[in-house]
């Protein structure tokens, strides 16, 4: 893949997002972070840094836009507006369907793996998932295509798989991180296993679960442009064709909305993470 400045910016964005949620290897750290107040402060500072980055990014996008206008790029991008709208619609659908499915499947799967009855297999499965996450998303798409052929379905499936892994892993780790004495005290007061799960384990794992969703959707949004390569459509079409035709305006017409979408998705998730998770288990507040 050509490392032109715009996809590089996308990669940066992805990296930034991944660092934002408890990432792959340092999930334990993320969990520990929930415990101490000082660590909460550290997390807050980290959040601030992420916000700062976002502003820098936004400023860069703005500068690029101004430059584009001056050089006559913007008018030629404007001519592509119908394509942009159509492809953006397709793009957002890819995100929503694959991301939504991944959440719907990933969270229950992760929670199920954390059940005591699954203890014997869970660690192995999580190891497999960990290896899975080291596979580049482009390779996942390629594998998906080799099984399901070309089109929307393999694209959604590939995106789904790439998005699923962090969600499962975090849901599992989140439930594992609930201190045993909470479960003991819930059991001792006469909660049924289901009540313990719904009233104690999931609420206390929610922050970590949410962080997984955020990481996963950042990966998802960052990968969707590649869906074009296996016939999935989306804004990647403009980007890659722009590269192929050396048409700078077309490439930007794909890259800019892609970048904005990534920022928007992460912003929305960050806000809901802040407001939806109760204060008692939310280290951000």
């Amino acid at each position, binding site marked *: 893949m050509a490392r032109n400045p715009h996809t590089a910016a996308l990669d940066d964005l992805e990296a930034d997002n991944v660092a934002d949620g408890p990432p792959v290897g340092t999930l334990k750290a993320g969990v520990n972070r929930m415990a101490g*107040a000082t660590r909460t402060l550290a997390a807050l500072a980290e959040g601030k840094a992420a916000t700062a980055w976002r502003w820098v990014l936004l400023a860069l996008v703005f500068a690029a836009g101004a430059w584009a206008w001056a050089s006559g790029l913007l008018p030629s991008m404007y001519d592509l507006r119908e394509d942009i709208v159509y492809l953006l619609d397709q793009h957002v659908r890819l995100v929503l369907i694959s991301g939504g499915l991944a959440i719907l499947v990933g969270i229950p799967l992760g929670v199920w793996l954390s059940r005591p009855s699954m203890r014997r297999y869970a660690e192995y499965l999580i190891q497999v998932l960990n290896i899975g996450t080291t596979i580049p998303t482009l390779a996942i798409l390629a594998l998906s295509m080799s099984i399901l052929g070309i089109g929307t379905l393999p694209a959604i499936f590939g995106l789904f798989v790439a998005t699923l892994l962090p969600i499962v892993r975090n849901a599992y780790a989140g439930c594992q991180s609930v*201190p045993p*004495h*909470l479960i*003991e*005290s*819930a*059991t*001792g*007061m*006469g*909660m*049924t296993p289901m*009540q313990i799960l719904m*009233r*104690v384990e999931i*609420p*206390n794992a*929610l922050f970590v679960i949410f962080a997984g969703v955020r990481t996963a959707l950042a990966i998802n949004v960052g990968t969707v442009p590649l869906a074009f390569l296996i016939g999935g459509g989306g804004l990647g079409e403009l980007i890659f064709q722009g590269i192929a035709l050396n048409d700078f305006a077309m490439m930007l017409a794909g890259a800019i909305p892609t970048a904005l979408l990534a920022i928007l998705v992460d912003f929305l998730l960050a806000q809901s993470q802040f407001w939806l998770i*109760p*204060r*008692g*288990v939310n280290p951000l507040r």
Partner: protein
Amino acid sequence: MIRLDELTKIFDTPSGQVVASDRVDMEVPEGEICVLLGPSGCGKTTTMKMVNRLIEPTSGKIFIGDTDVTKQNPIELRRTIGYVIQQIGLFPNKTIEDNICAVPDLLGWDRKKSRARAAELLEMVALDPGTFLKRYPKELSGGQQQRVGVIRALAADPPVMLMDEPFGAIDPINREVIQDEFLRMQGDFKKTIMFVSHDIDEAVKMANRIAIFDAGKLIQYDAPDDLLAHPKNSFIADFVGGDRTLKRLRLITVGDAMMSDPPTVRAEDTLADAAAKMEEHGHISIVMVGPKGRARGIVYLSDARGAKGRVGENHKKLPASINAREDLRTAVSMMFTHDETSLAVVDDDGFYKGYVTQRGITHLLGATYRDA
């Protein structure tokens, strides 16, 4: 009432079998606190957790009242037993109010009723409901969390409570305060309580009866004073400590040890009368009381013998007096502080009720050994 009948728990571990509870037979009478005591790993927690079936017994029976709990639905059983653990286990995702109401909510109590109860219980442990009900556990100090942990277990008014080192994680000063608070509540509630501790002083303070375990076996089960006075064997004697007789001082109130109907003098009496009274009783001092009987001063035999004048002009200030409700430990400490061999005992209103002497105290403590 909690009754354990030949209760046994054997854990199968990779390194062989561990007998955590070995044919334990005991009964905790209604409304009493029984403290399970013993060295680490002796099976206190295991024995206690079998009562609410967090651990299933290998053999033996457990009765609460007349029901055999091993035949009861464990979920329903646990909702009728208050449970407090050392790590407290407040749910971080719930407010203090919702934490306290956890069991009432499980039992489907009316919300208004349970919330009112939460506020009432908070007040009992001196936490302002207005401030604390809507807080989250992380916004409380350790001692405050511990208090909430205890009242949460009391919320649904269970007849039986199990407490596993409930005050173990608190600093010594706060622990005393919480223990006192808890004893005051227990005075009202009269729960039947099994209480695990590894602290002999806590046990002596809290317990109606103490059960000492060693390697899964119940070695001695007695009232604190009997246990301290008559340890069954050298293991118990070592465990309760060489100062066990001093520990007994805590268990006896001044009121129980005092000599009542003491001789007194009044301000208008002559010193000669005072000296005569002291000699008659064989005392070296006598307390002067006011018109209604309040302790006002003291006259020493050495000052009164052969002297002229009235008690009113020649008495000395009372060096120390002690309330009849205090324990003997405080009394002895006060004697040492003031270099006195006897103390005037007064009631809450300051009326002179009697006196305690060092000889009297040693005699009382010694009595049980002479009888044995």
